[in-house]
């Protein structure tokens, strides 16, 4: 006999409020998740000039209120997002961007969907462990915040994923606009900006040693502490300086746009022999997908033994050899170039064609920087587009 506790039973057991019919959100909550970008992005009327002391104090307040705080920290010389226990751990010093994206805090690399236990002749199924309360993701670069907005499209709009939705609902995002661009940065080429607001609830804009804090959504506004009454309101000069810095960083990213309008051409370039060349270097690891803020593919595997364990959702990557291998042994993408093509086309052709022309790439450049063999997705898209547009070698 199989017994599985429903989400509501599980919520009751854990003493959490029970929502109507499973995990359904209220109308209001649902609408907000539908398009967090539509809510008051241009609230320029309110902003504060805050120094390091002030934002650290504010983070301390958030921690004391019981929120989980996720922020960049320095670990063995790497910058990584970690849940911190004190505001002093947050390290923005020399911080270009973290080694990998913060997506694991919405879409964990390993997530138990349910557990099983053999009890004599019966199998007991259990709901996964409850995952915390409110969380604040602090210090995300605008590209990463936009990357999480892409995950929203996958996990909320294409059929709602309950565990993602629950986590997303409890999460607020504070982004940190860039004061410099690294060689691999290309947010402006994919419709982003070093001060992009997509996916952010609050944003810090750099101001030569201080920051301009602005709330972008009602959720963000709620996070602003009462002590903000004592903060200096941002002056017109502050706004101007923030805008100047944004323009300066934007200009320093010298990349031509990778247009979403290329999608049909790229899709048409599927059979081009060029992919053989573009993917020849690929050694078939999963770095690009695992460091990417918008890659959302996963596999489902059972972890444990014949007596107890869990069914888990695990990150997966289309460049790994097992990604499309069927149980029969057949693999529709049998070669590394064919797998690499999937990566490029999913981000720049299939996704925009299905999601109103939005690219599944936010230009953080991590895959460009960390690819063991220096594959540059920007170059691949440009070359595939040229080949597709000229129709060369089309069968």
């Amino acid at each position: 006999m199989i017994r599985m506790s429903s989400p509501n039973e599980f919520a009751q057991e854990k003493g959490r409020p029970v929502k109507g019919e499973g995990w359904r959100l209220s109308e209001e909550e649902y609408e907000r998740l539908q398009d967090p970008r539509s809510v008051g992005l241009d609230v320029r009327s309110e902003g504060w000039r805050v120094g390091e002391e002030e934002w650290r104090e504010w983070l301390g307040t958030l921690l004391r209120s019981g929120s989980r705080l996720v922020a960049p920290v320095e670990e063995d010389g790497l910058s990584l997002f970690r849940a911190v226990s004190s505001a002093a751990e947050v390290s923005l010093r020399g911080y270009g961007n973290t080694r990998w994206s913060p997506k694991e805090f919405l879409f964990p690399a390993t997530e138990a969907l349910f557990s099983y236990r053999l009890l004599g002749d019966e199998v007991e199924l259990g709901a996964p462990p409850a995952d915390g309360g409110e969380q604040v993701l602090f210090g995300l670069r605008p590209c990463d915040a936009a990357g999480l907005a892409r995950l929203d499209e996958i996990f909320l709009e294409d059929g709602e994923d309950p565990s993602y939705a629950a986590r997303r609902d409890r999460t607020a995002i504070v982004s940190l606009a860039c004061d410099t661009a690294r060689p691999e940065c290309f947010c402006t080429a994919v419709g982003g900006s070093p001060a992009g607001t997509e996916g952010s609830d609050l944003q810090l804009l750099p101001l030569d040693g201080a920051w301009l804090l602005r709330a972008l959504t009602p959720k963000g506004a709620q996070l602003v502490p009462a002590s903000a009454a004592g903060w200096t309101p941002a002056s017109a000069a502050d706004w101007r300086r923030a805008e100047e810095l944004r323009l300066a960083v934007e200009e320093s990213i010298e990349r031509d746009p990778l247009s979403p309008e290329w999608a049909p051409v790229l899709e048409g370039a599927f059979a081009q022999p060029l992919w053989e060349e573009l993917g020849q270097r690929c050694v078939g690891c999963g770095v690009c997908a695992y460091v990417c803020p918008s890659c959302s593919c996963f596999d489902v595997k059972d972890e444990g033994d014949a007596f107890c364990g869990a069914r888990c959702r695990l990150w997966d990557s289309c460049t790994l050899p097992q990604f499309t291998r069927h149980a029969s042994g057949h693999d529709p993408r049998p070669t590394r170039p064919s797998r690499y093509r999937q990566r490029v086309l999913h981000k720049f052709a299939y996704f925009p064609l299905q999601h109103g022309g939005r690219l599944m790439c936010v230009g953080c450049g991590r895959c460009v920087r960390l690819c063991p063999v220096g594959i540059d997705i920007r170059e691949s898209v440009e070359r595939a587009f040229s080949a597709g547009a000229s129709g060369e070698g089309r069968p």
Partner: protein
Amino acid sequence: MVQLAESKEPRPRVPEKGWEPRIVALVCNWCTYAGADMAGTARRTYAPNVRIIRLLCTGRLDPLFVVKAFQQGADGVLASGCHPGDCHYVQGNLLARRRFTVFSTLMDFLGLDRRRLQFAWVSASEGVKWARVVDEMTQAVREAGPLATWAAPAATAPSPPLLDPGAEPRQAPSREESGRITAQLQETAANLLAEGKVSVVAGYASGSLPGQMVPAFVTAPEEASRLAWNERCANNLTVYLPELLRKKGTGKVGLVVKSCDARALLGLMRESQLDRADVVLLGVPCTGVWDGGRLALKCYGCSEEVSPLADLTITPEGARQGPLASARERVAVSDPRDAEIAALESLPPEARWDYWQRQFARCLRCYACKAVCPLCYCATCIAEKHRPQWIPAAFDGAGNTAWNIARAMHLAGRCVGCDECARVCPADIRLDLLNRRLALEIESRFGYRADADPSAPPPLTTFRPDDPDEFA
């Protein structure tokens, strides 16, 4: 293991009341199992803490059996088989001796308490010895306490400071010299392609990031101008050889190699993966590759300018037949990682355990380490197997640790020290230290080095009757 319960607290290292050590014994069918049987028929009483798993031979003992036992709750693992010379299969235990010795070294370096992992020779008639071995081991594990969960250590665990490798022993070559070598390389590659001596040349070309050099494949003489050589050419291109050889058509494969890369060729030849005649090696005079603004650590102790395997050596003056070193005095110093290894080994095991667990906790399981390794050529990796599943797929302490142990062990005695795995690891796990520690162990115990003649078998597939061991 995947977290199923609410608590994230690791199992305590201080024994709970009523705790009893759990020991898994992996024993051979012919000697130790019979020995244990002998202890039973002789009514010998001994500690009841051991669960016996019978193998046909200790030669069948895969290190992952041990890892699995630990991960499923064993506090100690005892392996035991016939005395040297008594193996039912003649040599299984002698192979096991080498393998277990290297595996113990790895586990010790990872910070596993030595008391938890032991090997003993117990013959079919040694019921008394079996009882003694079990009693002693049970006592030792009791003193060591319960094994902590394989997971990330507390965030506050201090990380031992990285040692400063000191000043680089040599300079990067001048731009002018690299330029002249590049010109000669382009000419040589174009000639080889034009004359049909090779069908493809794998070399390096500029990447899209500033100063970046990336692998490039040239199949026509006019494309040879893409090739270049400088101190940023870090990739080991031998990783592409199996694929290039499958696709080469009629010609040979031309490969630009540094001397460290070429050692991987020796490894492939040693394991019958390569016909040397299919490859034309273009040796480039390398004074060391630069990684993140400084000389790569592997280059400090390297004094080899051109691989002795090279078919052609590309000098600034032109291509020459065979390996050819310049008259330049080349400064090599001791490998700075030896000091790092010594520093780690001077720490108590728990600190070493935390050091590695902290790094393994970051592992993304992207398998870049495996993908760039020229010796990781298996068609299906153990990490991809799930029936049975030896390496948990979950991205957590247990799965990541099992993967990193499996990788290190599968490369033990095969790794050529090109350090590609450590270079590409996005989580900066010090795979080079693991590899180097095992290479040092294998050299000191079995006198084997990665640059040995390719007719010498890999050290863990062979044995000497008088191999050293410290087993009971």
